[in-house]
């Protein structure tokens, strides 16, 4: 929809744009959320596409995805055949409520910055143990584990003027064994529960809960946990109030499915028949 309060678009931003970021400013990623709701108070858009970042690059340690990389670009990127865990990229793209037409517009970084519990790019980055690189208004950069980037519903670690520059996904996790479970109240609807499991050759196991909870919860075990240990760890890590409550699922339902699907993931990673 039109955002009629906007009077200016900065189409060629620079690092200085971070320092000058003020009231009424908003970063424009894909625009798919920004233009989808009334935005009272926004006067100026700073177009991140103007940085012309390379959308996606492989390095020695894995994959560097620019915040402005379109979801369609991520999905279309040809992955090394050895990255068996790369299937998570497809699974998470498919988990987006929006259509493939939204993939053509929405950015990977925008999905994280929107910080909805059901944001599947948050699930992907957190589930694979990724790292977010953040630019600061002072001109420096720092990193934060992707599982900690989103801190609550519509809340992230970003401070005023900061922006998400890129997300790094580690090759180790991408080439390991993974499992994915997603449940929605409707057949192709918004995720009510989305869990990702990874198993490293060392046996290190990570179970990451998203959509179900107000922020990602990542549980790491030195070895594949036993049934009871996994359940106890989930109950210990997720307080009742951490389960999200909105039209996409009742908290009790989310809790029940989180525990059930975590067990299914554990069994799948162990190579056993699973739900």
């Amino acid at each position, binding site marked *: *929809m*039109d*955002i*009629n*309060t*906007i*009077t*200016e*678009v900065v*189409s060629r931003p620079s690092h200085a744009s971070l320092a000058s970021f003020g009231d009424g400013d908003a970063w*424009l990623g*894909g*625009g*798919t959320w920004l*233009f*989808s*709701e*009334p935005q*009272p108070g*926004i006067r100026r*858009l700073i*177009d991140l*596409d103007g940085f012309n970042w390379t959308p996606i690059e492989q390095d020695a340690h894995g994959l560097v995805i620019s915040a402005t990389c379109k979801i369609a670009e991520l999905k279309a990127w040809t992955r090394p055949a050895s990255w068996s865990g790369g299937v998570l990229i497809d699974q998470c793209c*498919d988990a987006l*409520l*929006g*259509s*493939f*037409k*939204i993939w*053509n*517009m929405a950015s990977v970084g925008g999905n994280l910055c929107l910080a909805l519990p059901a944001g599947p790019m948050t699930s992907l980055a957190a589930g694979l143990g990724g790292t977010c690189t953040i630019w600061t208004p002072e001109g420096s950069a720092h990193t934060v584990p992707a599982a900690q980037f989103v801190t609550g519903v519509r809340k992230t670690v970003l401070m005023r003027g900061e922006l998400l520059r890129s997300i790094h996904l580690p090759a180790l996790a991408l080439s390991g064994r993974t499992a994915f479970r997603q*449940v929605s*109240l*409707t*057949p*192709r*609807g*918004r995720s*009510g529960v989305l869990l990702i499991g990874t198993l490293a050759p060392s046996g290190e196991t990570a179970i990451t809960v998203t959509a179900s909870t107000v922020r990602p919860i990542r549980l790491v075990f030195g070895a594949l946990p036993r049934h009871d240990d996994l359940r106890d760890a989930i109950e210990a890590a997720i307080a009742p109030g951490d389960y999200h409550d909105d*039209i996409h*699922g*009742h908290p*009790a*339902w*989310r809790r*029940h*499915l989180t525990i*059930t699907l975590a067990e299914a993931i554990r069994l799948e990673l162990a190579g056993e028949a699973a*739900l």
Partner: protein
Amino acid sequence: MSVTINGRAVEAVPRPGQCLRTFLREQQCFGVKKGCDAGDCGACTVYVDGRPVHSCLYPAVRVVGREVTTIEGLACGGELHPMQQQFLAAQGFQCGFCTAGMIMTAATLTPAQLEDLPAALKGNLCRCTGYRAIEDAVRGVRHVEVPPPGEAAGRNVAAPAGLGIVTGAERFTLDAAFEGLLHLKLARSPHAHARILSIDTSDALAVPGVRLVLTFEDAPKTLVSTGLHELDDDDPADLLLFDRVVRFRGQRVAAVVAETETAAEEGCLRLRIDYETLPAVFDAEAAMEPSAPLLHAEPEKSGIAQPRRNIVAEVHGDIGDVDAGFTEADAVYENVFTSQRLQHSHLETHASVAWIDEEQRLCVRTSSQVPFLARRRLAKLFGLPPDRVRVLCARVGGGFGGKQELLTEDVVSLAAMRLGRPVKLEFTREEQFIGATTRHPMRVHVRLGAKTDGTLTAMQLQVISNTGAYGNHAPGVLFHGCNECIAVYRCANKRVDGFAVYTNTVPAGAFRGYGLSQTVFAIECAMDELARKLAIDPFEMRRRNVVKPGDALVAYNTHPHDVEFGSYGLDQCLSLADEALSHGDDAPGAWNSGEWLLGKGMAIGMLDTIPPRGHFAHAEARLMPDGLYELAVGTAEFGNGTSTVHVQLAATALSTSANRVRLIQSDTDKSGYDTGAFGSTGTVVAGKAAYKAAIALRSLILGAAAKRLGVDVAACTLTADAVAAGDVRIPLGELACEGSITASGASDGSPRSVAFNVQGFKVAVHRITGAIRILRSVHAADAGTVINPMQCRGQIEGGVAQAIGAALYEHFDINEAGYVTTRTLRGYHIPAFADVPRTEVLFAETSDALGPLGAKSMSEGPFNPVAAALANAVRDATGQRFTSLPLAADRIFAQIGSAPAP
């Protein structure tokens, strides 16, 4: 730098915060529709550099230097794109508002995407069709046929507007450029109940471009209702154009009219409105308590049953001896069932444009089901003679009852009369939720008793209907809701008590089914339980108790009425659905894995074919000098398919082909009076008038030809384009060369007949997630003679799909402060392609004595039995009775927990 649109360089510069959708519409690309304006519905899909995007989300500034393709640019060199041809051949649309976006999306799908249409069409919503017709179009299935002259009725004749719809050329309400157009935006109440102390408009008027601010001080003093009926007194007069007391959050309090939407929005923000807040009540039962705040106690208001108890309307009826009936019963079942608030979610939002014509008449182009009633109401409101007001509709993008209200026309009219310039108001999708109307939430206490052989001994119903802040449709929905659901059962003892109650919530209004979907849910669930108690098959339970020709049609009193069995196909419907549900019984392996609980269920519905107390239509059929026919009817087309039916009826009467009949419709200047398209009357009332007019014209033509030829009328034969007598032939154009030949027909909507629907489901319920999967959906309908099987099937599939949304997914939520929390289509989940099963549609073979060529209505009926049939199937699968809707997975889970493996 410029933008290339459909191959043409355009020099226009987008505004900084503009989305591509509005930019394209400013370039006259009216095929780019606004459904949600939020990326959910896909009606605005276009290509940017060849890639499909939702143009409502696309920052327009980013298209500079790029190539944009809209539906208007999809056809190549005069040749329709294959996908456009396929949507024509399958008639993959009803109202057609979603179609351009649907085609633009479908035309890009890869073979892999075609394998998974539920995923590929995630971003395209259709509220009319139920998606079967769309899938057929995408897959290249042909349904449309061109029957020989005179044989249009009963065949799959194409909708007259088809080509316009698939090319984006068909004009809907706002698809026109108006010179000097002003934009109107509404300021809305932040309080659920408050008195306006003052409105300071000075800052708003100071905004550059603002031309007018309207508040309660400008409103006519005439109390009206937004609800529109043949009889004005059917709705209480409880509303002013701007009320000084606001009674729900979101109620309009002022309008700002400006040269641009930006200025109008800014003006709304700058209004300074002082309120004195008042206590509010949101629950219907609480609102009837003596201590509850009163919403409409002012003495000047009329048509309210008990203003001191917030009761707008009440119904009480008693036949036989209900207490004795329950005493006599071998089994009694009772429970309380609740049906939730729903939003119609037609893809075209409410919108209208008003202007003053050269003769200084008020003209309004609006998205309405009832242009003639809107004209009458506007005339009353502004104290004008009706002939000083003209109301017209272009094609309307869906209605479902929601457009049987006056929600936008009054305020644009007031502004246009004040300013002498055209004024537009277009609701946003959010305004559809906070400021339009909804289905009436209802709490229904039902009690049924029967003998061991299943014979009903007593039926009792207590209904509490929450009508919201105003009483539009409150009485009608309550009375209708308590009628056919009970009248369909033969039972000597019946009692009904019902109340429609004011609360400080968004007003409920007319919604497909008009009260019956809520009561049918209660009664049909209770009937299922009663049959279980007696160990009687649910189909058999109905066979033993439903009315048959010869029975009196009695709901809760014995007052005389004009409903009769013009035909009867309920017996056939029961057999058809029963049989379809019985065969092919084995669920595929996955469903038998033990993870899923399997069950089946059914429910029935009866619907009077016409609303009571008069429904009028006048039609004119004309033979024109060009040898073609014109048919003028007042009925608006909003996806109900009546345009096609009217043309078919006329073509049949005139022994011609459908493409020789031009339809002129929904314009108070261009046809006789028409009550409007509600209560499923498009075919049976307006269609009947059209058919009569055409039959009368046929006689005139034959008479004129006989006179010309000097032969007996009996010797003349009307053919597709001429009258023949022996070897002589007069082309029709020649007969009308000195002026058109005109005949008229009328219909008064009485007596009325009954139509029937039976829905059956097989479902699987997941033991762990609570998810419901519909394994089979069958729907048997008694529509009398089916004038257009393709369209009638579409109406039924669409009704079933909308009802599946109501039964499984949709809930319109209002929080404890009266704030609507569901304000978008992603927050209010209407069925997408993935959510709707294919429904097997089966028609009873009947012919009605009252309807045109034996036809009956089939618009609302299919909606009514669906929720109960689903709940009954879930009961069969899980052993649990769910008494409230929707049957969402998390709610199922909450009740069944992790059910033990069967």
